[in-house]
């Protein structure tokens, strides 16, 4: 079943059926059903997936929707284990993007004609889908950005520059992604604010007690990851928010590694800001979003200036639009936003709880198998009853450079992992290593993928060791 390359119909043949688009976005699934695929993706697919679930794992079922996974690289079957870097896109998302350009591409919020009204509707519908996906109370609290990095920069430049004073403290951890360190460095230099870093405890997780102690009256912002892209650990955001709010500080959550993999409820977390990337959650690149509490967004000055974010423009001054438009200057990535909406539909169709459950299983399996190999050091906490790891492992093999491992795995076995610092240089410096290798999974990976990876890794290690 694995090796069969699904020949999905070309888009040309979709055209005659897709003309009925006027009926609304549901036509996508109508169109898909006209082809005899055993599993179709999209909002209507959950029933079919449930029916098949007796003998097939979620990974096996979902794989069918991802044509890119069915190929060979360098003479071996592709085993894609670099999902923390970017995820693959199911056919439904690709179709949504294609359909936008093919049938109703038009600039949004500006025109009056039919196509532009349609595009605007779909664009705003995508915003609602994202809001629903993270349980934001109002879709106007979702600002579309280019990616999570831009979203953090938005908060840094807009909220940060107007709220941080000399001596104010911003709390981060040493495990943050560069996108949640560098903007704060820039802004703290401009405002005189001070950055403080929470270090790791013996379990190689950020020290929560240390964080609690660090939060003081001077703290204005706590900007932390939800799930670490290197350590696979998660932070207790709800607690952190409580502590921060007690002292009047805000909390920004970098949810890039959590939103794609589990249920994230911004109301439950009560975070002030939350960012995520589309491309890590089966959506296209070029789009991400910032969730911000309404009152905060309303008080923030613009980030980028231009069309769309204005109300009235004179030669010497302008007035600005309400959020979210205030922070969406220029023509947005319309097709991409709509495709992100389709990704939200696809994932919701499977169900985030189901995805998370499957990944927990896979995460444990990966950790178990990887840690059973000799001379392998995996970073981050050990999984246990109380500690759940994300489905990724950053690791090093004694005496071997991660780049050598990754190269050999790719060239000889078609296994795609990542090697380097994973945009977390301070963390690697703290751990005392130059670089690490990382295998990261998503719900379309299977136990067999993990087995292939482990076998390939064993072969790789023995090859290099024979040269010592």
């Amino acid at each position, binding site marked *: 079943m694995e090796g069969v390359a699904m020949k999905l119909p070309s888009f040309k043949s979709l055209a005659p059926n897709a003309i009925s688009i006027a009926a609304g976005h549901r036509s996508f699934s109508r169109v898909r059903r006209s082809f005899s695929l055993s599993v179709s993706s999209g909002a209507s697919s959950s029933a079919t997936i449930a029916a098949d679930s007796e003998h097939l794992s979620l990974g096996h079922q979902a794989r069918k929707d991802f044509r890119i996974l069915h190929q060979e690289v360098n003479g071996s079957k592709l085993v894609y284990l670099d999902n923390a870097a970017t995820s693959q896109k199911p056919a439904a998302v690709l179709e949504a993007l294609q359909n936008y350009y093919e049938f109703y591409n038009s600039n949004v919020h500006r025109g009056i004609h039919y196509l532009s009204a349609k595009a605007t509707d779909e664009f705003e519908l995508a915003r609602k889908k994202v809001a629903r996906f993270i349980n934001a109370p109002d879709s106007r609290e979702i600002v579309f950005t280019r990616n999570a990095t831009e979203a953090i920069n938005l908060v840094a430049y807009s909220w940060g520059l107007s709220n941080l004073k000399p001596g104010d403290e911003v709390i981060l951890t040493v495990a943050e992604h560069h996108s949640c360190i560098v903007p704060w460095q820039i802004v703290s230099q401009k405002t005189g604010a001070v950055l403080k870093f929470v270090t790791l405890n013996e379990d190689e997780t950020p020290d929560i007690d240390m964080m609690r102690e660090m939060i003081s009256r001077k703290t204005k912002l706590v900007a932390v990851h939800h799930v670490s892209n290197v350590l696979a650990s998660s932070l207790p955001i709800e607690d952190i928010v409580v502590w921060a709010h007690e002292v009047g500080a805000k909390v920004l959550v970098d949810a890039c590694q959590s939103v794609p993999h589990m249920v994230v409820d911004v109301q439950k977390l009560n975070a002030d800001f939350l960012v995520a990337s589309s491309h890590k959650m089966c959506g296209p690149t070029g789009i991400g979003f910032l969730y911000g509490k309404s009152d905060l967004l309303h008080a923030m000055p613009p980030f980028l200036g231009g069309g769309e974010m204005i109300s009235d423009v004179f030669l010497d001054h302008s007035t600005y639009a309400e959020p979210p438009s205030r922070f969406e200057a220029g023509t947005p990535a319309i097709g991409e936003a709509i495709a992100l909406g389709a990704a939200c539909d696809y994932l919701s169709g499977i169900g985030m709880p189901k995805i998370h459950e499957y990944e927990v299983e896979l995460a444990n399996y990966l950790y178990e198998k990887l840690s059973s190999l000799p001379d392998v050091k995996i970073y981050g906490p050990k999984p246990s009853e109380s500690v759940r790891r994300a489905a990724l492992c950053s690791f090093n093999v004694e005496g071997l*450079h991660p*780049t*050598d491992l*990754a190269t050999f795995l790719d060239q000889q076995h078609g296994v795609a992992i990542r090697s380097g610092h994973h945009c977390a240089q301070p963390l690697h410096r703290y751990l005392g290593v130059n670089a690490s290798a990382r295998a990261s999974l998503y719900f379309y990976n299977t136990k067999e993928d993990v087995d292939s990876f482990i076998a390939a890794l064993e072969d790789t290690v023995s090859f290099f060791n024979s040269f010592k």
Partner: protein
Amino acid sequence: MAAAMSSSCCASSLRLIPFKRTLISSVHYPAKTLFFRPIPSFRRTIVTFQKISAGIVPPLSASSSPSSSDDLQPIEELPPKLQEIVKLFQSVQEPKAKYEQLLFYGKNLKPLDSRYMTRENKVEGCVSQVWVRAFFDEERNVVYEADSDSVLTKGLAALLVQGLSGRPVPEILKVKPDFAVLLGLQQSLSPSRNNGFLNMLRLMQKKALFLEVKAEEGTSSEEASVLEAESDSKPSLIEDLGTEEIEDSDSESNVDALGSRGMRIREKLEKELSPVELEVEDVSYQHAGHAAVRGSAGGDGETHFNLRIVSDGFQGKSLVKRHRMIYDLLQEELQSGLHALSIVAKTPAEV
């Protein structure tokens, strides 16, 4: 045709054709030109790998002989040891064996003394850490030493060290990076690693040129030039740049007007060379990190320039002679804070 890669890996799939074309077309090195422009990133240029069930496209093996592509530098133009290495790799069919060969080279590479693992000796664009050091022997041939923390990269470094060491500067400068294609290793290496390989070669060539230029200056009648801390007019065993801090004993304060040095350079070159084309680009900001730069010529000194000159004056002159001409003309600048020039010097016919 040594269809080494294709037969053993994936007979029915498209090989790295887009990659190869990208390599050839964007890395074009006519023999007489020096190439200090940044090399484009080759990351992720491979777009599709499809299993073709019907109608197998004959795979274009990148380890083919030079005759299959007119763009490749003929193997005979390579330094002799490098030719040997290339032939050796071409004769090894299996990719795994190529790796073994590469690792073997790396194992026998003389380790680099840690005091040479400086910023100036580090190769940019490598996912692992690589350092390269260069110095002259008694006969003014370049001797290289290198090291890396990754064994595959060390193998590549060893390959380059063995292939290029003990050769004169002009020969080293003539080597085009696309001999990597001849090795057949390119396909065994990811684009980011290949980037490192190209940058390694580029750094080695740049160091060779600097050694040559420094040596030329050392033999001139001028006092200690800015480019060496300890002036030594004998060309033997001149240490490479970067291991010594470049002190400027005569830090001028005439760099108040931004672009004044740039203007002077321009004037001088125009006056003396009557160029058909002249581009003077101030890239000092790119080097703002060097401690040496910060010390000399003021905080925002004009220290690094890219020059592109097309002039009849270069007719009949070798590459090194052309560079020497330019350096001679800019002696004053070089002694007052100008650190380095990246030069493209052509005759109108060569453009």
